[in-house]
């Protein structure tokens, strides 16, 4: 099985991409920035901001952070709890 990460989408971002979960390939040195660039190629991704918030394995991450096989990457719309 090839190396991949699970990408989770929520709320307005899930509506934009038409799905709440994707599996995306990762390799040695793949970063959050690389995954976002690949995500931007998908239909509907033009409705996402250029630099959305991202969490890796349920913690907020930076665009330079590495993504490894099996990681859970969440693309997080502006939060609106309360």
């Amino acid at each position, binding site marked *: 099985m090839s190396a991949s990460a699970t990408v989770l989408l929520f709320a307005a971002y899930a509506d934009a991409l038409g799905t709440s979960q994707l599996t995306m390939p990762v390799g040695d040195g793949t970063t959050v920035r690389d995954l976002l660039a690949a995500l931007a190629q998908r239909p509907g991704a033009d409705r996402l901001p250029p630099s959305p918030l991202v969490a890796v394995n349920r913690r907020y991450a930076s665009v330079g952070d590495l993504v490894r096989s099996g990681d859970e990457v969440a693309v997080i719309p*502006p939060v609106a709890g*309360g």
Partner: protein
Amino acid sequence: MRSAIVTRPLDPGALLREVATTRCGATALFVGTVRDLHDGRAVTGMDYEAYAAMAERELADIVAEAVARFGTGQVVCEHRTGALALGDASVAIAVAHPHRSPAFDACRYVIEELKRRVPIWKREHYADGTRQWVDPTGAARPRAAR
């Protein structure tokens, strides 16, 4: 201390009883409820969605921070998700402390950090039948409490 993301109706009175202790002379309670107007549009209801696993952890971190900063272990917070009606409580926070000032401050800290960090989103239902995810970045973002 305790925190939870729940799908059942919130019971603020139960949170007050949970934090009560005779060591504490002050209890602060914050309850957030679904209101009927947003940016001039009539709202009829609200859906709350959470990235539950991360929201539970982030909320637990915030409550633990409040406990450390304000010197009381008597802090509980629950946030509800799912379909809520007007007037329903979406979030409830109770803090008991020996004194009132840090009780208020800790309660304020939890709600402000929750609104800044916890991955929860809400979709408003409007009187005209349309629905829209709330994007708070259009307005001033709440600042972290000091």
